[in-house]
Structure formats: structure tokens, C-alpha cells
């Protein structure tokens, strides 16, 4: 996966103007990708008989008309960002975790179970405990496939796919059963009681709905950046990813590293689930996630597994989602266009990562390198 985003292994090699050009290209191409996707979307919108310009105006208003809308975009991006960060981390180590969805559910389950307790705790403590619970729930759900992969070479793709379904049904059981709000009503909704006020994430940008989970996400991004690109552990984890044999030879405990990254990745998915409950939904419901764990795979990969890239990708998806909701509500374009739009963005971003590599600029840079050496 050698797409050109700053990957830590080879920055600062070129002359400044060339580096600048390179960054320009890295920044511009994703915009081109989004633009291309919007063009394709426009064609489809026109097919439904709606004027694309009008539809996109509604979409843009949905994203940026007011602080409030911007806040919504950030709220949407938050869980995707947090899961994506964990996935980027684990993908760097060559472990292919597609179990974020299940880990999200298990984290949300434990996080909510703590959040609904009336322990009379101060908010900071109650929130921390809930988040910790989320981390542990998701982490345990990542530990199992991580352990099986690291110690017994059991393919993690198959185990994580299956564990996703199992987790969803476990949560289904708890929301119907032991954790159900108002268990005596025969026809009560399958959902837990509301989490205590002391465990709800504070809103940080009134008047918007933006909650502290977003800041937590940014903090986690910084933390993961430091771990991955500044700390010895990150180098080891990436070494395990790019060359397990070399990592073993160099004395690294590859088994332990794989398990750790899997637990962290699962844990972060669990934190994301908990943040979504504590910050937005306030209750855990049966099948509450619209596939966040799957979308985050695309986000991590589009962001080249790099925290900065992941932040940008999740903001883009958040914006598309919020904008498209508005577009559907106010311009009457069927909701399914969102899927097509997001898919086309994914396609174009994936392809543009390769354009970057192929473009004449690359040659220019190489020439520059020769000149400098």
C-alpha cells in the first residue's frame, strides 16, 4: 500500500519546491475525485427529474449553511474517525480486521451498561469509566481474532466477519432482555434505558450538537500519530506489517504486537460505539449502527492508514452523509443516491492515489533527487 500520503518513511527528501508541488498534488487530487463523483451523481440526479444544480445547492446548504450544519458534519464524522484510526493502526501491521462493526457493538454494549448505572459519580469519572468499558468491550472482541491469528495463524478475515454477526445478535439479546428499558412492558422498544446525565458527553460548540467525542477523536488521532510514527512501538508494528520475517529476525515479539494492535483497533471501535451512545443516541438500541464499522474500512484505506488522512476522509464522508440527507429532505432526491455518491468517491480516490504515482510529477521529483545526490 504505497500511496503517496506522507507515510513517515520518506519525507523531506526533495527540494522544497518539489515537495511543495507534491503536497499540492496530494491535496488537490482528492478534490478532483470528489468533483468527478459529483458529476456522476449529477447525471443520476438529472435522471430522477430533479435539477442537479438545485439538488447540490441543498446538499451544500446541508453541509455548510450554518455552524449548526457544520457541527452535524463533525458529529457524523466522529465515530467514523475513531474507528478508522484503529483500523489504520491495525492495517499498518498487516492484520486485516474487518470486525470493526462487531467490536463497535460490543464496546457500545459495555460502555452503555456502565453509562446507565446510577452510581452518583462525577461526570468526568463516569464518562471515563464508560469509555474504558467501551474500549474493553471492543478490545476483547478484537483480542479473540487477534490471538487466534497471532498464535495459531487462523485467518482473521473469516473470524472477524463471523464475529460481527455474533456481536450484533448478542447486543440484540441484551437490548431485548437483560438491559431492556421497562422490561415489564411486553411491547417495549428493544433498547436500554437512557444513560445517566453524568455519563453523557458534554456539547462543546453550542449552539451545535457537536459533543466532546469529536475532541476525543482528534486527541486519539494525535496519540496514534505519535505512537505510529514517533514511537519505537509504531516502528515495530509497521515492521510486522511490511515484513513479519524481518520483524521476528530483529527480535520483535510479533505475536504480542499483533495482539496489541488488534486489541487497540477493536478497543477504538468500541470507544467509537460508546461515544456514539454517550454523545448522540444516549441509549443502546438493537442494530443501532448503519454499518459504521464497514464504512470505516474504506475511510482508513482512503486515508492511507495515516491519522491525518483518516481525519480528512471521515470528514468527507460525514459531509456527504449530512449533505445528502438534506438533499433528500429538501430536493426529493432518493436517499439511495448517497450510496452511489460515496461509492464513486471511493473509486475515484482509490484511482487518484495511483494517478499521483504515475503522473509526470513523480518523474520530475526523481530527477530532482538525482540532481541533489
Amino acid at each position, binding site marked *: *500500500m*504505497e*500511496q503517496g500520503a506522507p507515510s513517515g518513511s520518506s519525507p523531506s527528501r526533495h527540494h522544497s519546491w518539489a515537495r511543495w508541488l507534491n503536497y499540492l498534488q496530494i491535496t488537490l487530487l482528492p478534490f478532483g475525485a470528489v468533483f468527478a463523483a459529483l458529476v456522476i451523481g449529477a447525471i*443520476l440526479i438529472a*435522471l*430522477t427529474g430533479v435539477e442537479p444544480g438545485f439538488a447540490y445547492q441543498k446538499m451544500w446548504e446541508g453541509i455548510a449553511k450554518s455552524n449548526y450544519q457544520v457541527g452535524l458534519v463533525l458529529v457524523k464524522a466522529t465515530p467514523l474517525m475513531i474507528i478508522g484510526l484503529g483500523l489504520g493502526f491495525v492495517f499498518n501491521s498487516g492484520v*486485516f480486521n*474487518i470486525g470493526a462493526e462487531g467490536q463497535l457493538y460490543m464496546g457500545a454494549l459495555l460502555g452503555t451498561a456502565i453509562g446507565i448505572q446510577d452510581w452518583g459519580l462525577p461526570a468526568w469519572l463516569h464518562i471515563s469509566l464508560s469509555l474504558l468499558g467501551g474500549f474493553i468491550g471492543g478490545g476483547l472482541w478484537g483480542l479473540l481474532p487477534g490471538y*487466534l491469528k497471532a498464535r*495459531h*495463524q*487462523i*485467518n482473521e*478475515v*473469516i*473470524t472477524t*466477519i*463471523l*464475529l460481527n*454477526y*455474533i456481536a450484533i*445478535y*448478542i447486543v*440484540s*439479546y441484551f437490548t*431485548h*432482555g437483560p438491559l431492556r428499558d421497562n422490561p415489564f412492558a411486553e411491547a417495549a422498544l428493544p433498547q436500554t434505558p437512557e444513560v445517566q446525565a453524568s455519563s453523557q458527553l458534554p456539547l462543546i460548540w453550542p449552539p451545535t450538537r457537536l459533543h466532546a467525542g469529536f475532541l476525543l477523536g482528534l486527541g486519539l488521532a494525535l496519540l496514534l500519530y505519535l505512537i505510529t510514527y514517533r514511537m519505537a512501538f509504531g516502528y515495530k508494528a509497521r515492521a510486522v506489517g511490511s515484513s513479519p520475517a524481518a520483524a521476528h529476525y530483529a527480535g520483535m515479539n510479533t505475536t504480542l504486537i499483533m495482539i496489541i494492535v488488534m486489541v487497540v483497533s477493536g478497543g477504538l471501535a468500541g470507544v467509537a460505539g460508546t461515544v456514539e451512545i454517550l454523545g448522540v443516541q444516549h441509549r443502546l438500541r438493537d442494530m443501532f449502527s448503519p454499518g459504521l464499522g*464497514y*464504512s470505516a*474500512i*474504506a475511510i482508513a*484505506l*482512503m486515508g492511507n492508514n495515516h491519522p491525518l488522512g483518516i481525519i480528512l476522509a471521515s470528514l468527507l464522508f460525514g459531509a456527504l452523509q449530512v449533505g445528502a440527507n438534506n438533499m433528500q429532505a429538501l430536493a426529493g432526491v*432518493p436517499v*439511495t*443516491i*448517497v*450510496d*452511489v*455518491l*460515496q*461509492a*464513486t468517491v*471511493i*473509486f475515484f*480516490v*482509490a*484511482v487518484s*492515489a*495511483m494517478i499521483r*504515482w504515475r503522473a509526470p510529477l513523480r518523474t520530475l521529483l526523481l530527477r530532482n533527487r538525482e540532481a541533489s545526490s
Partner: protein
Amino acid sequence: MNEFLWLPFLVSLLAAGVRLATPLLFAALGGITNELSGVLNIGLEGMMIGGTFGAYIGALLSGSEWGGALGGMLAGGLLGLLFAYLSITWRADQVVLGTGLNLFALGLTSFFFRSMYKAGISQFVPSFDVWNVPLLSDIPLIGQIFFRQVPLVYLAYLLIPLFSFLLYKTTWGLKLRCCGEHPRAAETVGVNVTRMRYLALILSGMLAGLGGTFLSLGQISAFTEGLVSGRGFIALAAIIFGRWKPLNVAFACLLFGVADALQLRLQGFGLPIRYEFLLMFPYLLTLVTFVVFVNRGDSPAALGKPYPEK
């Protein structure tokens, strides 16, 4: 349950298992093909979704279920072509593309469907009827389980030996597998790796499309959204479970199908088990079987890596 008769129960269970396994089997056989050629395709789900819709349109236009099958294969094949173009010609990341493809097929089919029917109700179209295989269907037990099904089920069985043969016993299959193991080596013996991978993906799309066809024209006679509901991912799991060998993969699909059939029956008995656990059962059983009995298997060495490497 005093009138519980285990033999008819078993027969009906296995027959249902065979039906539930059929769409998985089609998609998994397709998936084996592209994975052996070195392309990791987590877009199987999307290809199946494309197939359900293509089959519906095909049947609608041609007025025949076989025209529908053609339509399903065409839709899946086109998605395979798109995947191939982006992943092989553009060398874009296969996992990213796979997730994109799933979303793409889901969005596009329902988009078209809603454009066709504002009310959202699908017409009924010609579909596959059960066809009892002469003689074979009269064999006690076996006949009831295997030979009183719709023709697509028979096609799926036939494809198992066919693909075992094609992938593991022919010159073409050897070349294909070489592309997945060591594409450069394949190129040095004169294999066109690009063409092989294109072919494999298109073939895979067509098979996944047939899997979709079975859902829309073999199980019901219409198109609805949400017909596939995760079967593409289960097929992906079955491929690894069966270690890329058609017969083993078929077994994995059947295991899952029978487990699913079993849980549906157990629910009907009103056992004192929460239904969530019964719904979980096929996944749990597959997981446990995999971990305990199958576990490791070598995936094709070049799986997921674009060629030529850069």
C-alpha cells in the same frame, strides 16, 4: 414434540440447507476464481446484489427465467469488469474498491428500481420452478434432499466438479493459479497476467450474479431490496474455510446452509432459547468449526497485490 419424526425432519432440513447454500456456493466459486488469480474481492456482496437486479430485469424483458439468469450474469459480469478496470488497469487498492463496489451496487440497483417503480412494488416475473430429476428424484432420502430443487441448484452442483477440474486440472487453471501465486513468474512463461485477472473477475462477477439470480428468481419471483443481506461476506468466509478448493468450499457453504435451516426449524419448535441465539447459531457454528478443525490454510501468495508491482 411427541410426533417428532427424525427422518422426514432430517430430509427437509438437509433439502433446505442445500437451497440456502446455493447462492453462497455460486458466489464462493466465483470468489475462488478471482482469489486464485491474485485479486482480493470483498465486493462479492455487491456483485450478488447486481445479480439479483440484473436477473429481475432480464426476466422482465425476455419473459423467461433463463433470460433472467442471463441478465443476472450480465450485471455481475459488468460489475466484475468495473472492478477489474479499476484494480488491474488502474492498480487501485483492491480492498478499498471492494467496499466501494458493495456500496455502489446497493445504491445503483435500488436507485434504478425506484426510478422504474415509483410505488416501489416489483412486478412478478417468470422464475425457476422445482424440477424433479427423473429417476434420481425417486431415490429415497437422497432424491428428496438433492433432486427436487430448482434447476439453478443442479447447476451449482455441476459447477463444483467443473471448477475443481477447471482450476486444478487444466492448463488454464494452472496459469490462473500461477498469476495468484507469483504473477511475474507467470509472465515469464508467457501468461498474460492482466488478461487472466480480467477474465477471472468477470467470471467471478457472472457467478456471483447467478447467486443473485437464485435469490430473485429461484427463491422468489421478484426483486426486492435487501435480498442478499450479507451472503457475499459469508461466501468470502466460506472460501477461506474451504481453502480455495471448490469441494471444501461447497462443504463450508453447506455447513452454513444447514445450520441456518436448523435454526429456522428450532425457532418453530418454540424451544426456550432466545431467538437471538438461534439466529447467531450458523455463524457461531461456522466459527467454531473453522477454528477447531480447519484453521490455517495458505492464501494465494500474491493475493491483493497489484501487478506489476511498483
